[in-house]
């Protein structure tokens, strides 16, 4: 049972920032390819806390809070760029790419008059640095020394499943942000919930994409916080069968006139056509056939979340493969045939639970545990999320 108040309470939200987002977790920040050269930077966030990721002049990655140590103003106002130093627009305090305060305007006053207090030392006022780690081209940041090394945090199963997809240099096909009218945890529940997939998303069943005969598995890591859900291409209903069937649904009334979107190239050579992977607290790696994307889940208050989409392919994709990915990306994103509903369903819950302090949701499909299972009609990974969440919140 999950009390609905955890999605609406501002107190809960404030405690979450401290214990979850600033706790012993790794939060996704961006792609290392976007900060490949010295001086490259990008801005990101952990929870609502603004973060700068930068490669310093020696080529070492750094991450720090995007906040001037003087009066707290944002330092970087652009989404990304190249910089030799960070300078605050307010009073021109400047920092090197390691976050050290290097210059304070009028530090010694003007003509010996004024200036900073005599005990002021620049070395005490650098930017707040956080830890940064790279895995398979993904950048993660952590506020906590208590977070284990990134590979230990992810665990061998999740590491392997990330590397399965991100196994060669990436190409970014596009980016956008879907504003979700709900608490961030409702989206994480949604993305971990394989029970709803063939029920809410009628595109799957209408055009017979996700059939019950497909074999698959739900993997939940030991902490509960990460999960992988995957299913295989059904060999008995291969593409040839689709074309023979004229891609008709069971009731024979609805058909796609251009079936290209349903074709799947077995690009990873393992027959797996769908893999959804999450890393606690807010990272999603998606393979829906040949549509690949990264989703970063950023809370924006108790009832609002930014879902930041990065659609990817590979540098060595030929023109045909890229076109195929672009066609299949119609299935995902804010206008996605199979993901648009996820943008709205969290809002239905958020509105449904307004003013409730007495009720709780029921998360019992597939039992009460959070172990891996072969049935996808389960909420095991949703329970896993709450197991991890509660261990951090101390509740």
């Amino acid at each position: 049972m999950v009390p609905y108040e955890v999605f609406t309470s501002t107190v809960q939200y404030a405690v979450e920032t401290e214990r979850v987002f600033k706790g012993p977790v790794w939060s996704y920040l961006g792609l290392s390819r976007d900060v490949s050269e010295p001086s490259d930077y990008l801005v990101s966030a952990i929870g609502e806390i603004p973060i700068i990721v930068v490669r310093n002049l020696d080529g070492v990655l750094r991450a720090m809070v995007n906040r001037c140590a003087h009066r707290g103003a944002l330092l970087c106002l652009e989404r990304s760029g190249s910089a030799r130093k960070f300078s605050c627009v307010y009073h021109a305090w400047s920092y090197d790419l390691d976050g050290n305060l290097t210059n304070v305007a009028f530090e010694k006053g003007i003509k010996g008059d004024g200036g900073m207090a005599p005990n002021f030392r620049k070395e005490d006022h650098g930017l707040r640095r956080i830890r940064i780690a790279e895995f398979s081209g993904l950048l993660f940041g952590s506020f906590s020394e208590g977070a284990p090394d990134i590979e230990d945090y992810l665990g061998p199963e999740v590491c392997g499943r990330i590397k399965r997809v991100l196994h060669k240099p990436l190409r970014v096909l596009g980016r956008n942000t879907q504003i979700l009218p709900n608490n961030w945890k409702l989206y994480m529940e949604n993305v971990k919930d394989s029970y709803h997939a063939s029920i809410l998303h009628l595109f799957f069943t209408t055009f017979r994409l996700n059939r019950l005969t497909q074999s698959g598995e739900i993997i939940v890591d030991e902490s509960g916080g990460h999960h992988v859900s995957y299913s295989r291409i059904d060999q008995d209903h291969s593409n040839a069968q689709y074309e023979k069937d004229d891609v008709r649904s069971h009731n024979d009334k609805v058909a796609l006139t251009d079936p290209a979107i349903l074709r799947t190239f077995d690009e990873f050579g393992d027959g797996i056509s769908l893999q959804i992977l999450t890393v606690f607290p807010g990272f999603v790696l998606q393979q829906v056939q040949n549509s690949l994307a990264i989703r970063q889940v950023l809370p924006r208050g108790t009832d609002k979340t930014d879902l930041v989409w990065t659609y990817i392919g590979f540098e060595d994709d030929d023109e045909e493969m890229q076109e195929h990915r672009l066609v299949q990306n119609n299935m995902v994103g804010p206008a996605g045939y199979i993901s648009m509903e996820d943008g709205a369903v969290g809002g239905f819950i958020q509105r449904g639970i307004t003013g409730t302090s007495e009720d709780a949701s029921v998360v019992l499909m597939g039992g009460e545990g959070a172990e891996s299972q072969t049935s996808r009609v389960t909420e095991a990974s949703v329970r896993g999320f709450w197991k991890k969440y509660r261990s951090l919140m101390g509740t």
Partner: protein
Amino acid sequence: MVLGETKREMLIQLMDLHARYSAALDNDRLEDWPTFFTDDATYRITSRADAAEDLPLGIIYCNSKEMMIDRITSTRQANIFEGQGYRHIIPAPLILTASETEIMAETSFCVIRIMHAGDSMLFASGVYRDNIVSSEGDLKFSSKTVVLDSHKIDTLLAIPL
């Protein structure tokens, strides 16, 4: 390049095309949407930021008229979303180049989204980058790129822009 009276005539035809196009979308005649395109037309929604980097993604991407028909089939038959409608506001097009048979134009637009419960919001703004072909006075889009000013989309985009 056409000039003078011919260009004025084209401008009026183009405004009429946009008026008919937006009336179909705003009045829930979604099945009419593909009929504004040539058979081999492309339709793509992108953002100004992606366009600046020349990124190819379409938030909606159709590389054939069939895909446009399928988009409407899915919207009608498969996808689930709360009742909503659009109101397109489209000022005069900017004709970039025009011959007797082809026009390239950029046209600003705003779309207000009206939810079934009555809430309305400015849902999207941007520019249509259009290639239009004229055949016996009948104009159709041969390609339409919808460049959104913002890369953020509220909740979902269920109906084409």
